[in-house]
């Protein structure tokens, strides 16, 4: 068996140098996707037209491969709108991952909103709280608690999908690993090193998620 363990561990620090770009893509996408997902979730509960637009959006972005979406955004759209030629691939990846993940988050948030008993908002309003205060202080924490497990999964999926940036020519974790692999011809070690770094990042995120779940779940323990 031909496996160079020492090479693999030596490679990790070199690959880690590209972690910031992966984190930038993932972090920015998480923020944009969450805001867009919330907007879509509210649209799903809105009037007929808003609901229709949101459903169409969700259907398209859930029903087509994320890689195809990235290719449309980065290579296709500038053909229609030449001004987009100046947009760098990192921005295109952030846009694509955000648009895609938002479609899934919208359904998760909608279910989260629906899962809170109507009596909660009624009690808040009947006690004289304004609607925004009732939403922020009473509904939002309960929605978060219900939505966090599924949302955490989506965030982890998004971090892994950030490796697709490689296809648009962004040098991030995966492409750094591929460069090393091609140079050394030690493919197994290089790609395993890449996998370990992704695993480390998603493991830390899972820990954070579990802590948040414990914290928000405290009021519900009998």
């Amino acid at each position, binding site marked *: 068996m031909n496996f160079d363990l020492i090479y693999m561990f030596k490679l990790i620090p070199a690959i880690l140098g590209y972690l910031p770009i992966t984190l930038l893509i993932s972090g920015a996408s998480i923020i944009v996707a969450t805001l867009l997902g919330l907007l879509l979730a509210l649209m799903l509960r809105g009037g007929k037209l808003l609901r229709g637009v949101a459903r169409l959006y969700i259907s398209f972005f859930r029903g087509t491969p994320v890689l195809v979406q990235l290719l449309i955004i980065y290579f296709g759209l500038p053909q229609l709108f030449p001004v987009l030629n100046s947009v760098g691939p990192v921005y295109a990846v952030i846009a694509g991952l955000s648009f895609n993940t938002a479609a899934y988050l919208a359904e998760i948030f909608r279910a989260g909103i629906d899962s809170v008993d109507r009596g909660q908002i*009624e*009690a808040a309003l009947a006690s004289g709280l304004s609607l925004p205060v009732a939403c922020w*202080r*009473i509904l939002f924490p309960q929605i978060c608690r219900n939505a966090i497990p599924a949302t955490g999964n989506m965030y982890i999926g998004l971090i892994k999908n950030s490796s697709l940036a490689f296809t648009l020519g962004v040098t991030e974790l995966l492409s750094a690993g591929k460069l090393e692999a091609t140079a050394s011809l030690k493919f197994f070690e290089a790609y395993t090193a890449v996998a370990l770094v992704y695993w480390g990042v998603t493991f830390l995120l899972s820990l954070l998620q579990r802590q948040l779940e414990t914290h928000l779940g405290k009021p519900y323990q009998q």
Partner: protein
Amino acid sequence: MYADKSMINVSGISKSFRGFQALDNISFDVQPREVVSIIGPSGSGKSTLLRTLNLLVLPDSGKISIGNASIDAQHVQRKQINTLRSKSSMVFQHYNLFRNKTAQENITEVLRFAKKLGRKEADEKALEYLHRVGLHDKASSYPAMLSGGQQQRVGIARALSLEPEVILMDEPTSSLDPEMRRGILKLIAEIATQNITLAIVTHEMNFAREISDRLFFMEQGRIIAQGAPDEIIQGDVGSRIDAFVNDYEI
């Protein structure tokens, strides 16, 4: 004027849900410090009526006033809704405690954000009201840790703490087992003696008779009889009420 003195004045309110007439041109007055119970068969519109008083249900037409706040259902502004709601507080059948807040926080939350009290003052007042309902030792318990009866006590403390002009109670004991029910009924009976205007929707006929100044009997979205409890329950006001009262084994 009679209407000027009344605490609650309801004039000609109607409400329909998808063609079902839940409230049909209802008018009544409730005097300050009066205790009224609304009784009647299920689906007669009792809860809907109560919930129009704080506009959790917005009537299609008619006028409502509580204290010096009033609203015309056909020309409603958000500010008027908030003003009218500030005149009353509500106790719910399913307690509706904020599930993410402790017993004490359930009260401080409404004191801070509805009554605009400072955090410290709200905390102290919340404890005082929990004490009043005998639950000061449960201040830091979350609703999930409390029994139904305890949750309803917190719900009552929350409603009292707002010191409203009117307290609305929507079947406050319907979700409780008999033992807990007795405790809550006793607590409500005590509150009823404390110079507060109370409107209660209930199926507890004996209780309603004991504590109420007046009973409203509802059927098919209308108040078909109102008067002193004995007048309604024993008086000759119609066979339908007799049948209903007999069902509840008075």
